[in-house]
């Protein structure tokens, strides 16, 4: 009999008493403990103090704890979006062959996953217009960090400056992660000014010199505005032999200017805007770049090849860039990545198709505009703050303290960002129309 609900031990270890006895005999041991070669001085003879539970009790425990989360309608975005994920994505990605397989080190029995990742890479190639996309990084912030180390490796001239937008147009978390990634290099991260929710192009021009190795900008910006100076930034980077790294995501990329067309050398961002629910910030690092940098790309790449019968087959390739072969000279330390999330993103994108993807982005423009107009009508609210085009979200100025308004809204069931003493930010992605209506009413009630 094995360890089932009623017996102590791991419920997932299938040993019968009989089996265990036979196995111990085979290895010439009386007890399993004999097999542990641990000196007494470092033996652990205490307990963790963690109670075992049945499956059902464990599910109830987690349900009960998570039940403490408030059920709010989230008008939250700022780089992380809660689009509806079709049921198809869950059902297909949850097939255990996808979920429970390892990295495709034996491609002959992993063709299905390799093909799915190859298709994911192809999706990013189309979205960015760049020739190469890897099959995932952790998230947007770490992908940005990897972009900087790539810039450090590939740039012809010397240099040390990495230019990023100042705080109002760059999440602090991304900057902080970037700082950690470049801490072991000579790179230094510096801010450049912004103006009315876009890059301050003139100021950026003044800031750029030959010591710049990378310029980073986002489209749309974290404040929801669409960046209007991309091509100019691309030219500026080009003129100074710096890499232009653009932050975006698959929904935005479906509609907005194609990165390759504005001179982007690297595109990073969170691809899991498609495929994952909000998941408290779990993401999928998008990473695409020019073919020139192929051998310096971080992360895994799936390539097409042929098998012994000359049929097309897929495999991880260019692994000599990776840590398990190149060790301290690898292009990155990444090993486990976000492959399964990439699968989900690929399925979600395929379920939308190009029409659905463009339409989803278009709706993000239209619905944000509609909501902005609606809340702008409320006395004590002005929206949008920036006189620009917006995707999905926008900043609104409120006469009363923003923090108090947000707290009031939360009591009424809505979560919004506070982005300034008198600024809140509102995102429509994934929020049904009727909830937006309810929100506008709630806001009206709050500022009254």
């Amino acid at each position, binding site marked *: 009999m094995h360890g089932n609900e009623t017996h102590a031990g791991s419920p997932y270890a299938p040993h019968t008493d009989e089996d265990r006895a036979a196995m111990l005999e085979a290895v010439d041991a009386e007890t399993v403990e004999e097999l542990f070669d641990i000196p007494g001085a470092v033996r652990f003879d205490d307990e963790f103090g963690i109670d075992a539970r049945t499956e059902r009790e464990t599910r109830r425990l987690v349900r009960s704890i998570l039940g403490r989360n408030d059920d709010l309608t989230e008008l939250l975005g700022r780089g992380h979006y809660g689009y509806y994920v079709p049921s198809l994505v869950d059902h297909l990605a949850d097939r255990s062959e996808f979920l429970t397989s390892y990295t495709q080190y034996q491609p002959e029995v*992993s063709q299905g996953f390799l093909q799915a990742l190859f298709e994911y890479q192809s999706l990013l190639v189309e979205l960015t217009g760049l020739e190469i996309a890897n099959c995932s990084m952790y998230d947007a912030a770490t992908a940005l960090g990897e972009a900087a180390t790539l810039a450090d490796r590939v740039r012809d001239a010397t240099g040390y400056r990495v230019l990023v937008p100042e705080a109002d147009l760059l999440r602090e978390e991304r900057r902080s992660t970037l700082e950690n990634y470049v801490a072991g290099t000579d790179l230094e991260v510096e801010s450049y000014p912004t103006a009315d929710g876009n890059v301050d192009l003139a100021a950026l021009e003044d800031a750029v010199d030959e010591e710049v190795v990378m310029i980073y900008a986002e489209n749309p910006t974290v404040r929801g505005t669409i960046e209007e100076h991309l091509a100019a930034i691309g030219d500026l980077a080009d003129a100074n032999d710096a890499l232009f790294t653009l932050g975006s995501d698959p929904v935005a990329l479906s509609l907005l200017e194609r990165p390759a067309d504005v001179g982007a050398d690297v595109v990073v961002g969170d691809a899991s805007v498609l495929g994952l629910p909000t998941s408290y*910030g779990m993401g999928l690092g998008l990473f695409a770049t020019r073919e020139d940098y192929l051998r310096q790309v971080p992360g895994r790449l799936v390539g097409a090849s042929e098998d012994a019968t000359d049929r097309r087959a897929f495999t991880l390739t260019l692994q000599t860039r990776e840590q398990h072969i190149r060790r301290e000279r690898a292009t990155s330390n990444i090993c486990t990545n976000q492959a399964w999330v990439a699968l989900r993103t690929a399925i979600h994108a395929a379920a939308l198709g190009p029409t659905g993807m463009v339409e989803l982005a278009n709706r993000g423009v239209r619905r944000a505009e509609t909501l902005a107009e609606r809340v702008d009508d409320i006395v004590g609210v002005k929206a949008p703050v920036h006189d620009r085009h917006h995707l999905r979200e926008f900043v609104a100025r409120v006469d009363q303290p923003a923090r108090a308004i947000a707290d009031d809204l939360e009591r009424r069931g809505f979560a919004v960002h506070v982005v300034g003493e008198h600024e809140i930010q509102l995102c429509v992605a994934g929020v049904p129309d009727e909830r937006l209506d309810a929100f506008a009413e709630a806001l009206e009630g709050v500022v009254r």
Partner: protein
Amino acid sequence: QYEPLLSEKDLTRVDIGDGGDGIAPDDAESVDSPLPDDLTRDSLELPELSEPELARHYTRLSQMIYGIDSGPYPLGSCTMKYNPKFTEDVAALPPASVHPDRSERSVQGTLEVMYRLQDYLGRIGGMDAVTLQPPAGAAGEFVGIRVAAAYHEHNGEGHRDEVIIPESAHGTNFASAALGGYDVVSLPSDEDGRVDLEALESALSENTAALMLTNPNTLGLFERDIDEIAEMVHDVGGLLYYDGANLNALLGRARPGDMGFDVMHYNVHKTFATPHGGGGPGAGPVGVVDELAPFLPAPRVREGDQRTKSGEPTYELFEPEHTIGKVHGFHGNWLVLVKAFAYIARLGDEGLADASAKAVLNANYLASRLEYDVPYEPFHHEFVASAGDQDAADVAKRMLDYGVHPPTTKWPEIVPEALMTEPTEVESKDTLDRLAAAFNAVAAEDSETLANAPERTTARRIDQTSAARNPRLSWQALEEDES
């Protein structure tokens, strides 16, 4: 058997806006946009397929994958365990998915899970403080390196620029140390396969920032001199880093914190049975001793001063005093953390200890059944056999023909033609016998048979050279190449 690419089933071009001439081309859809043309792309060309077609595509792809539910998966150091199904259910609970910018007040459930998991991991590793933020094991290593750097810097010892790593360590150790800006000092093994104390002695210096070690090491051997090693490292002012990849060997038997390690990462998909997902996502929480806690990434979770009306504790995020900042845009791979929490809560003390016991028993039993030589022992949860005259990579390909997954091969290099094998606790004696039979069948075969393997898989042996020499990394590249 063959499944076409999505792009071979359909490619539809959608023109965005009117392209200036007001006329949509015949072979494309045209979609207007509220944005001016100069802010939009011209077109998007991707497959446009229906739900039934997609269901078949991905179902078919899934059937061309070997997963843990297909059979044994004895990849040494990768700890491919069975992934309990119920953990998927708890991660799919609607309140598990909230936006990371929510107020702390409104996500008390999420914070409580994180708090409890921090606590569990601390107990299991013997560590005083834990961060859940690193999204994978390698990210955990990097956090450990950054924490060590910040600690030394804080103590005015920023000159320490070397990290010592045994030759047989996981590749990520080297890469993470390098990413952190350290010079790597490589440490040879002694003839028993463990850390060579003399070599360590000469490697250590006032420039030593840390020694990274996994224990049991990649040969499955426990570093019996760990006490002395710790003392040596600490004596020169260095820190001792524990690579948690092999923690499944020790649960309830020994804890890194008790062995003198100052900082460690946990691989939740290895030790705590979260699914590997064909490459990820994982999670690589990092535990440290009190002295290093102020340097951990921000934010962490702690109990707040207040209680709820019903007397329950409240939780809040806080920034450690000398934090290194962020290593992920938000809170790491949260859904993975939920699964790990559920796994630990399910097994408890006895279940975790039992898992290690059976992992070690399984490795020893399997090794005892093999014709291949296992040069180093006594090993724990994994062992490294030698394929001898055979090419270990060919052995692996041939094992596929017997319907089982092969071990990790050709590493660590200390064993010639290494077959690094870790069956984990989830395999039954029957399965181990079947796995051993596959090993032994291959051991008896000639090199030509092996070189021609696999024969019974979806794809036959794949040409790696061609893939690397002529990289075709997208369907666009493939089409170009074929045209």
